[in-house]
């Protein structure tokens, strides 16, 4: 049994990878906000900051599957230094980039400052001026003179180089978390973006509200973005802000951290659109909802129970009804019961779930029982799966009844009901329930429909709201979540039936593994 379970699970892995690829391809259908269709000149660098941000949030700045030249703080700084120092046509963009990179770039700029020719050194020092101003060490007029600015930065680096090491920064953050004070906050603000990695890592582990407010303030100061929090901020605001920061960091981490060593090799695959998207999805981080700023994962957790519940009840209900109806129909083939039940099941099979749900809703409304929404939703959902399973059950039963051992049992004089239940039904049950796995995708689709018709706050209901609001983060998450849920549900049913009937195991693994039919 253990071997079977392991093999079955191993065969799921390639399937999940395939599913992730398909969902990823679906996500690429969403239009690129900066595509030439928006009317801009595509060659113009750094179009609109907001558009650029939206693109980066979806990793559109990265190549799809292989990144031969992953960018990190070192390469970005090198580019900015070259252009800011040369004072060429892109000097303005380079200066803005230096301002954005901030303190994290210091270890790659300041030591090299001395080696530059005086003119380039001056230009670079002036370009770095806004950062000095941001960390509160110099005023704007002090930094406008190239010579003075260069002198300032040389002295700054002589004094502070030791603060700009990873160990030092982690110590400082640990001290702040332990005992928050304005002075310690000030220390971290001085380090500017260099502190971000440790600060945002601390946001994930810390849950004291005051500390979180301090941490977000530091991050906000260094990056000049993000929601403004104060001492009066509520827990909900803080939670959303932290989620926002972690999301932002996931997208922008390589702007402020160097990729080195083994990371440089792996980055070829991870610093890609697919790699980033997959890593985030596996970690359960599905982005932030565009409608209310809540993390998608939290929203999914909040809405999934409704959907899972109605699906499970509907499935159980349909099985309890389908097995006796299908089996008895087959036993009394071509008699009244069989003809009537077959006809009814056929009609149910052809009736779309949404029509049935709408009719049920109206009927209940007319009878004044419009409040029984959950019950009606389950009935509407169960009907489709009842029709399917009872037809399968009937077919399986007919198949078994044709076999020799049933005829032998009848000939031996075994009572009819015992032949029906013990000999025939027992053997006809397994294929029916195995096939039920095939019904799972349809069941989820049906759940979306009935939730919408009956207004149940499940995943489907929320998805239709997300469609109205163009909340693409939610939509992408939902496709992935349903696909993974269906795959796991399939594995689960296969496990149960493999345990019940060992003869089925090979068939189940092979159906998925597919070497031979």
């Amino acid at each position, binding site marked *: 049994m253990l071997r079977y379970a392991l093999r079955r699970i191993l065969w799921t892995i390639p399937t999940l990878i395939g599913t992730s690829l398909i969902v990823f391809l679906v996500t690429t259908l969403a*239009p690129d906000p900066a595509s030439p269709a928006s009317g801009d000149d595509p060659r113009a660098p750094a179009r609109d900051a907001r558009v650029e941000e939206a693109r980066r949030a979806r990793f559109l700045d990265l190549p799809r599957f292989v990144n031969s030249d992953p960018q990190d703080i070192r390469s970005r700084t090198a580019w900015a230094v070259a252009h800011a120092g040369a004072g060429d046509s892109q000097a303005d963009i380079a200066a803005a980039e230096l301002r954005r990179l901030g303190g994290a770039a210091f270890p790659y700029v300041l030591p090299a400052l001395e080696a530059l020719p005086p003119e380039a050194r001056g230009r670079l020092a002036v370009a770095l001026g806004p950062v000095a101003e941001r960390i509160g060490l110099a005023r704007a007029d002090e930094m406008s003179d190239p010579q003075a600015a260069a002198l300032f930065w040389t002295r700054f680096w002589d004094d502070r180089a030791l603060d700009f090491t990873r160990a030092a920064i982690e110590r400082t953050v640990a001290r702040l978390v332990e005992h928050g004070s304005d002075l310690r906050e000030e220390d971290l603000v001085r380090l500017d973006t260099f502190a971000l990695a440790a600060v945002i890592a601390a946001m994930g582990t810390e849950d004291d509200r005051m500390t979180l407010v301090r941490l977000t303030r530091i991050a906000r100061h260094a990056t000049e973005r993000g929601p403004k929090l104060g001492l009066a901020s509520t827990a909900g605001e803080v939670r959303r802000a932290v989620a926002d920061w972690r999301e932002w960091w996931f997208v922008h981490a390589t702007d402020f951290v160097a990729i080195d060593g083994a990371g440089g090799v792996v980055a070829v695959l991870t610093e890609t659109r697919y790699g980033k998207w997959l890593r985030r999805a596996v970690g359960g981080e599905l982005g932030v909802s565009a409608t209310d700023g809540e993390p998608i994962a939290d929203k999914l957790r909040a809405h999934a129970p409704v959907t899972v519940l109605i699906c499970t009840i509907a499935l159980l209900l349909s099985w309890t009804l389908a097995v006796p109806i299908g089996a008895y129909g087959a036993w009394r083939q071509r008699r009244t019961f069989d003809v009537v039940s077959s006809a009814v099941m056929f009609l149910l099979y052809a009736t779309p779930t949404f029509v049935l749900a709408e009719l049920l809703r109206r009927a209940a409304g007319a009878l004044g029982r419009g409040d029984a929404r959950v019950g009606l939703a389950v009935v509407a959902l169960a009907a489709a799966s009842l029709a399917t399973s009872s037809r399968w059950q009937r077919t399986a039963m007919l198949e078994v009844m044709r076999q020799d051992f049933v005829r032998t049992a009848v000939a031996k004089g075994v009572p009819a009901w015992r032949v029906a239940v013990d000999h025939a039904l027992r053997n006809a049950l397994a294929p029916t329930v195995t096939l039920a796995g095939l019904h799972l995708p349809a069941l989820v689709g049906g759940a979306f429909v009935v939730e919408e018709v009956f207004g149940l706050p499940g995943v489907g209901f929320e998805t239709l709201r997300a469609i109205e609001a163009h909340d693409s983060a939610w939509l992408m998450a939902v496709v992935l979540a349903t696909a993974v849920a269906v795959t796991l549900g399939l594995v689960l049913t296969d496990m149960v039936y493999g345990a019940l009937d060992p003869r089925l195991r090979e068939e189940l693994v092979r159906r998925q593994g597919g070497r031979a039919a």
Partner: protein
Amino acid sequence: MSGEQPAHETPEASAAIELSRRKGPSRKKRAGDSLSDIRQAAAPYLTMTRIAVLQLARSRLARLGAIVLACVCMVAVFADLFASDLPIVCRWKGSVYVLPGVTHPAALAGATCAREARNPAPGDWTLPPLVAHGPTEAAEAEDILRPPLTHGHPLGTDALGRDVFARVVHGTRTALGVGTAAAIVLVAIGVMLGAFAGFAGGLLDSIVTRAVESLTAIPTLVLVLVVGALVPHPTTATLLWTIALTRWTDLARLVRAEVLLTLGTDYVTAARALGASPTRVLARHVLPNAIGPALVAATFGIASVILVEAAVDFLRVGSPDTMASWGEALGEARANAGAWWLIVFPGAALLVTLVALNLVGEAARDALDPKLRGVGEELTEGMRG
């Protein structure tokens, strides 16, 4: 085993060989010609295909389904004769127009049956359609939500004052058009990939099997909804391609199994031993066996696509263009609780079409091979929404 076996391998054919040998003349001919003689001699005998067709024709339910389906197809094809805002034939300002609703002549832009009938010019005449309203023609304010059989609207009007009869009739065209087109594409993809996967084996087979597994896990309705929302300008074609490109999986699985079965048979081994190339084996012996199941699957496939299309339109996120569709009409009914005619007529049209398709599909499946019983359900289950 289902489908058509080469004629010389059936018992009837061996009898035919015997016959032709006794007659004598074929013995003088070269070997290549004798095969066609055998075929001719065997013609009156029953082949698997003939048995299937005969059995299909015997089934009363299948006949009923086929008749209903034929009617539905006629309605779809000739929708403009049943309901249109322009006449079938008319003479207007001295020129004669045939089916202006289809050809859209510039001279008649903006004209409708109702308006022209009010003040006919001398010498003009029109042959109006059954109902003189088009599916997208929005009427005046007093025509909103009219019950059936009032003011020339046999099935009433919807919340936008559009004629329900016209929308149901033209919705037939949408449903069958989308269903058939998607089914053709997905059958083509499914047969091709399934056959090649089964025939080539190895890596290609593994890849196709993985793809089938992965695609099967994604609920069609969810996928279609999300793709429709992500694509900047969704149309009915978006829905069609989404379904066609993702729902070939069940068919590929079936065809692959069929191919593997066929490859193990003696006549394929014999053909190989006689030096038949892989292409010939595939085309002459393997694919003909897959055609029957593929046709059955196509029938069920059309039903599933119609179902998904209606469900998506019902959820109000379908094509923003004003194409008439049953699902959209049923969606209208949700907002207007009192208007029973908005749910009854489009719902009946949808149900009748689906029942007819399923009847024909099931009968075809049973006729083709009793052992295939249940396979069609397995096939379409992944697509139901």
